[in-house]
């Protein structure tokens, strides 16, 4: 009777590859860590939410995102981290810089060991909320990112992975 729900959404296909030399970033976020190594942040307090935001902002700068894309990614991260904190009872958010086909991306993974999401499709609908938000958090975060994946098991937890790629 194990219920596993996985939703994969790719809003836009990944941009066509254009071979450019990978600008190898030495670190991501403020905590260091080489490219390709996820940096994990705790999401257990309100203060952690701000720390995560700063780390994501720094990571988007390092990846070379435009200002609008920085705003999109930081906003999505804020929604995901808040979900982890409020609905998941706390957890982690990891940031990882990706280099694929000459393009740079930022992968956010929000993980909790909370109650899980009973109906993922419903949770992604605008206006659906069980908490203090406007119910646009999850669906909104999905629209702000290029790739979005939810893995949730009732009683086990929820992991949301989201990627945005840079324009060039």
């Amino acid at each position, binding site marked *: 009777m194990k219920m596993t729900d996985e939703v994969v959404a790719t809003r836009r296909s990944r941009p066509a590859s254009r071979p450019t030399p990978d600008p190898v970033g030495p670190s991501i976020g403020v905590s260091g860590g080489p490219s390709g190594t996820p940096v994990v942040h705790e999401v257990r307090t309100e203060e952690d939410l701000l720390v995560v935001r700063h780390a994501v902002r720094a990571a988007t700068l390092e990846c070379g995102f435009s200002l609008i894309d920085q705003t999109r990614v930081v906003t999505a991260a804020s929604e995901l981290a*808040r979900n982890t904190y409020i609905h998941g009872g706390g957890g982690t958010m990891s940031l990882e810089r990706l280099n694929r086909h000459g393009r740079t991306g930022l992968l956010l993974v929000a993980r909790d060991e909370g109650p899980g999401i009973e109906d993922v499709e419903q949770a992604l609908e605008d206006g659906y909320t069980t908490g203090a938000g406007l119910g646009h*958090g999850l669906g*909104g975060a999905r*629209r702000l990112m290029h790739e979005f994946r939810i893995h949730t098991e009732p009683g086990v937890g929820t992991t949301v992975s989201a990627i945005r790629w840079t324009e060039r």
Partner: protein
Amino acid sequence: MSAPVPAGVPILRLGNVLVTGLLDELDDKTARAFTDELTERIAADGPAGVLIDISRLEIIDSFVARTLSELTTTARLLGARVVVAGMRPPVAITLVELGLALEGVETALTAERGMQALGWYHGSQPPERGTR
């Protein structure tokens, strides 16, 4: 509720308008404290309008959006008109993509225009060079 926490944002009175703003790092506690304080000031001062400058906000997520919506509604119920001013363009784009139009919240491009919308003029500005 616990003892009131100062929100850390000044609320100024200019004529019949209250002028205030939001800081970028709005957490739950600060948001609640700010809402409480502003509501008390509206009740005490009875302003016609409230200008909330948000030019410091680097992002508006659904939590901040909800805070702004609720503030606006509360103020309106107390007879004050709220204008939210100074949203950064990337924030506006992101909000729309998030699906949050901040409906019912009156906005202005800048604090100055917001003040004008609230009927507050500064009459002493000399005409700029080059005006006809």
